[in-house]
């Protein structure tokens, strides 16, 4: 079975709107945020129209229904990731999830397995999004631990040649992106996870760019924590996921404190509920969690294998056609081996901002700049790039539109 993107696109109302002077929208910025199908939009609306109440906080019928809706969404997410239900924590975004784990580690007292101190090290990579870099810089600064990082090769791959000295007995945490939001590179995890666990470190995976696009099975990956945002995976804004292995969540101190995450509270002290409640202070983002559940139900129906296959074929087409354009230089892998549907490039002397603006005038939405991965952009030796990022609703025609658009821009600015 395969996927018909023309049929899929009909599920996404925004894709039938026009841009600028009546141009059809060609949305190639799903790496920044994905569009939403009707079923997701309606799941959120229906929650408000029918079941809205404070989940886990009341004995009345609406509160029961709201609790059911929230917990049902949690079960859907858990199944999607092959995780246990109580391991799934609703946050507002990947950014919050990554701050959660880094602040929570910062809250760990001496004796707690997550406690960090001078002499310990944290390992990241040069291709991290700011959201998986700055929180670790801050944690290192707060605890005295050292921040180390894997470099990126000229081909846009992780340089793992030094893995044994990079991840060593001092390493407490390895935080890594699953798929680069600039290069499209998918990082090989087996060796890294094995090495990390050998030295007693935990592995935190930034799955923002993988969960929406391919089957991510937390158990078979063997990782310890995972973070992603709902809005990139055809879900609502304002919801993200933090996942952690049950036995680790038990020891991890809480991050946000307040209502519903407690066991007992006095004026001077508080004790905590078990996971996931411990990490979900306050009235939850219920409508958004429900919308995320609907998003995964939708993706399951289309089939993650179909989505992945569709993106692989579109990306191969794009890589093939774009390289025929004179002066185009792709940053990131040129072949489809361990790579996803994110393609960043430069076009001669045309500044990405100008290229993006030209494409926009043709209805084509791409992203330009450093894509919140400024150290990587610097390492690549460019001030900025233009990025096309694909998803299930994109079509071969849209790839052709992008390629023609680039050629026309060359004439326009030429």
């Amino acid at each position: 079975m395969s996927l018909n993107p023309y049929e899929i696109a009909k599920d996404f109302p925004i894709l039938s709107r026009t841009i600028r002077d009546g141009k059809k929208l060609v949305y190639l910025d799903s790496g920044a945020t994905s569009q939403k199908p009707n079923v997701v939009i309606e799941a959120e609306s229906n929650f408000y129209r029918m079941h809205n109440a404070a989940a886990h906080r009341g004995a009345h019928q609406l509160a029961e229904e709201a609790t059911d809706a929230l917990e049902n969404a949690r079960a859907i997410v858990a199944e999607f990731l092959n995780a246990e239900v109580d391991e799934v924590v609703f946050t507002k975004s990947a950014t919050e999830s990554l701050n959660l784990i880094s602040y929570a580690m910062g809250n760990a007292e001496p004796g707690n397995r997550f406690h960090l101190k001078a002499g310990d090290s944290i390992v990241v990579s040069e291709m991290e999004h700011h959201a998986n870099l700055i929180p670790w810089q801050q944690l290192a600064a707060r605890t005295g631990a050292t921040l180390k990082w894997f470099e990126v090769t000229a081909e846009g791959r992780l340089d793992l040649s030094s893995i044994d000295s990079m991840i060593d007995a001092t390493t407490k945490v390895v935080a890594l992106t699953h798929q680069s939001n600039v290069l499209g590179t998918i990082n090989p995890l087996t060796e890294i996870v094995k090495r990390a666990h050998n030295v007693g470190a935990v592995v935190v995976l930034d799955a923002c760019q993988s969960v929406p696009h391919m089957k991510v099975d937390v158990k078979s990956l063997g990782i310890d924590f995972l973070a992603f945002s709902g809005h990139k995976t055809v879900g609502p804004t304002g919801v993200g996921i933090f996942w952690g292995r049950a036995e680790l969540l038990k020891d991890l101190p809480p991050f946000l404190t307040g209502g519903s995450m407690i066991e007992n509270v006095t004026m001077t002290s508080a004790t905590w509920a078990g996971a996931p409640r411990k990490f979900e202070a306050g009235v939850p983002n219920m409508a958004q969690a429900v919308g995320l559940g609907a998003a995964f139900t939708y993706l399951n129906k289309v089939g993650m294998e179909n989505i992945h296959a569709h993106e692989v074929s579109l990306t191969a087409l794009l890589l093939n056609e774009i390289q025929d354009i004179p002066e185009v230089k792709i940053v990131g892998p040129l072949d489809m081996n361990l790579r996803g549907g994110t393609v960043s490039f430069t076009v001669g002397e045309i500044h990405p901002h100008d290229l993006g603006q030209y494409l926009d005038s043709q209805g084509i939405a791409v992203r330009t700049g450093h894509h919140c991965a400024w150290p990587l952009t610097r390492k690549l030796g460019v001030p900025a790039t233009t990025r096309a990022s694909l998803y299930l609703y994109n079509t071969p025609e849209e790839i052709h539109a992008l390629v023609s658009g680039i050629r026309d821009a060359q004439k326009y600015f030429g």
Partner: protein
Amino acid sequence: MMQLDNLYQEVILDHYKNPQNKKLVLEYDAQVHHINPSCGDEITLNVSLDGQSIRNISWDGVGCSISQASVSILTDLLIGKTMEQAQEISDSFMHLMQSKGTEKGDENVLEDAVALAGVSQYPARIKCALLGWMAFKDASVQALAKK
């Protein structure tokens, strides 16, 4: 009268008004204090064992009719039973609570506790019904460990 009567069966209101073994006895093998964090209900429960048998269970606490009746029924049911029998009864009760109203409970095993079957239709109340059972489980494990 109405659906609510499934929840508040006569037996429950009786136990609520006349709770059994609600007076902490001073001799015990283990004492635990459990709290329901969402409503603030609390229970202190003492267990004493006689080898593998439950010699006595006594308790004190504040809570709603469901939580009070449930622990009262528990003491009636479990005192004098072996730990193995208690485990079976607890499992059966747990199963009933998770049944979402689809089961009535086995009266031979659960006796008065089948009156709590209606609770399984009110998800927010299940933890009320379980407060005493969780406390007993915790206390009995501690008491066994001590021996």
